């Protein structure tokens, strides 16, 4: 089915490209740079879904190009520049590691509009956007603590960057509201995508007593191990229920389409300006997959937490936040940590026993 859809999308693009080549000059060329293959069923796949929806919405006014499997670093700079050189006026670079390369190319092409996902460096022609994934993690932490019998969670982490750290902290803060003594075991696989290694990490966590798995890596390998071992798990980036129909509790789903459509529309109107967008559950950039495989009361509580976060009455990082070393973190955002503090988070909250990576 998916293949059909993809073929259809490709065919549609091809037709659009050939039949309208006369007017191609008037069309806005939009480029996307992806970290993984579009079929990773995770991070890159969700961006690709966003792009396809963008084509569906504005297909008659734009032309899109995507580059997949672009590794972070010098390679990405070349790819981004390539898009800029070939007439793309709006370029979305969709991984944290593209930050500096995007900035460099943005300086060289001041008339091209750049959009970088999950970073913090901006320029007059370079905007940033990301999702408040920690909101979903907080809900997951709460569910996990209720569903865990042993009180030990397993966390498969990728790289120790602020986004991943804030996800771990939000999970723990959510879990601690249910069980103050909850434990988390963290394994860093130092990769966003290596199904074999992710599966090995999942096995190691389960073998060491974790009975609910969560991940910040991109493949559904861990979900499958959870299904094999009969323990609960959370999907990442996209709904992975197919891989664990009896064990997935919910998943954080990245929903980029509305943002892509809005920004491309702005570029078409000429109203595009650099900005820093950080959408969460409220703006539906982060969506929770259906709550499944849990008792009704747990489900109800999760829905209430979700509603509270959307209403703004609950913030996952509400003060006071106590760090691992026992010191209370400065509260720069009034009643909760400021966005700046969350975006540059470099400490574990109290209750996590593991040493902070790199400290």
């Amino acid at each position, binding site marked *: 089915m998916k293949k059909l859809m993809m073929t259809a999308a490709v065919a549609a693009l091809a037709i659009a490209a050939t039949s309208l080549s006369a007017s191609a000059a008037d069309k806005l060329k939009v480029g996307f740079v992806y970290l993984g293959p579009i079929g990773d069923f995770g991070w890159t796949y969700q961006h690709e879904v966003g792009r396809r929806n963008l084509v569906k919405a504005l297909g008659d006014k734009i032309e899109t190009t995507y580059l997949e499997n672009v590794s972070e670093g010098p390679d990405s700079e070349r790819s981004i520049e390539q898009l800029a050189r070939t007439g793309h006026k709006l370029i979305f670079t969709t991984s944290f590691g593209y930050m500096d390369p995007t900035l460099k190319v943005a300086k060289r092409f001041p008339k091209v509009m750049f959009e970088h996902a999950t970073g913090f460096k901006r320029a007059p022609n370079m905007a940033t956007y990301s999702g408040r994934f920690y909101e979903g993690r907080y809900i997951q932490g709460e569910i996990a603590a209720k569903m865990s019998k042993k009180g030990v969670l397993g966390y498969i982490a990728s790289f120790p960057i602020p986004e991943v750290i804030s996800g771990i902290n939000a999970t723990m803060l959510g879990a601690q509201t249910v069980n103050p003594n909850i434990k988390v*075991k963290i394994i860093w696989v130092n990769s966003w995508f290596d199904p074999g290694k992710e599966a090995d990490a999942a096995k190691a966590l389960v073998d060491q007593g974790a009975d609910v798995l969560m991940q910040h890596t991109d493949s559904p390998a861990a979900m499958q191990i959870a299904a094999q071992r009969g323990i609960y798990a959370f999907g990442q980036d996209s709904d992975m229920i197919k891989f664990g129909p009896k064990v997935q509790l919910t998943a954080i789903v990245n929903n980029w389409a509305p943002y892509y459509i809005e920004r491309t529309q702005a570029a078409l109107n000429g109203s595009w300006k650099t900005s820093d967008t950080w959408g969460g559950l409220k703006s539906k950039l982060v969506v929770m997959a259906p709550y499944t495989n849990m008792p009704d009361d747990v489900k109800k509580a999760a829905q209430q937490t979700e509603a509270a976060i959307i209403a703004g009455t609950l913030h996952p990082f509400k003060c006071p936040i106590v760090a691992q070393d026992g010191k209370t973190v400065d509260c720069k955002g009034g009643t909760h940590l400021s966005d700046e503090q969350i975006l540059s988070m470099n400490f574990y909250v109290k209750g996590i026993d593991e040493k902070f990576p790199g400290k």
Partner: protein
Amino acid sequence: MVLLEAIILSVIAASTPLLLAASGELVVERSGVLNLGVEGMMIMGAACGFTGAWLTGSTAVGALFGIAAGVAMAAVFALLTLGLAVNQVATGLALTILGIGLSGLIGAGFVGEKITPAASLYIPFLTDMPVVGRILFGQDAFVYFSIALIVAIWCFLYRTRAGLILRAVGDNHTSAHALGYPVLKIRLLAVLFGGACAGLGGAFLPLAYTPFFIPGMTAGRGWIALALVVFASWRPGRLVGGAYLFGAVTILQLHAQALGLGVPSQLMSSLPYLATVIVLVLISRARGTSGSAAPASLGMVFVPDR
């Protein structure tokens, strides 16, 4: 004890694809051909293996599809390097790039699909024995086959006349040719065998390790297999040791992290590479075989002069 058993089971699963692919490459290189396309042949084996298993519901058919894909890729390599005497290094690299792209295309329709993983052996009483039961008598067919394969390769290389000829071709193709041995034919068979092994090693990933297909799922295992052959100084015994050492350190570092030992995870992730290289180099040096162990004609193009 239960944890130890679990760790050993994970180690075996992590080591098997490396051992399978490296076994084939060992024979290829012993015949004097350097095929850097292992990663490409593996990922093709993974894509086609999954396709076969998904279409028929049978792991065995999947494995055969994987082997066939590896052989087909190897045939392309053989045609170029043996038939047309093209540079082996460049062709091997191109084969990897081709394999990664082509497998993505083949597998695109299967992303998100799943299959039943390969069945494990079960012998009443034996498999139920504590600790060693599942390790010795509860593996899937790939694991037993990988061990049987490397033993067979050892016997072939060192205990048969055909093996001796293959090594002779790898060490000095001109002399072997002068003696009347069909150098290119022998190399062709070796390259195809290497392709079959790499295809099977790749097929192990979606059929038994993580039962789904995702583009790029080999994640560099082909390169590790290649390196293992070199660091094992082209010897089957050391190759088994190297593959299992690499698998063991990979799994142990994950467990060390879960235990919260506090060693930087970046260092932990590099440990398998460091440990394997250091141990195998030390063994080679101790035996005085470093450097001289490589087949003398490795990577050299051979064009028979009538």
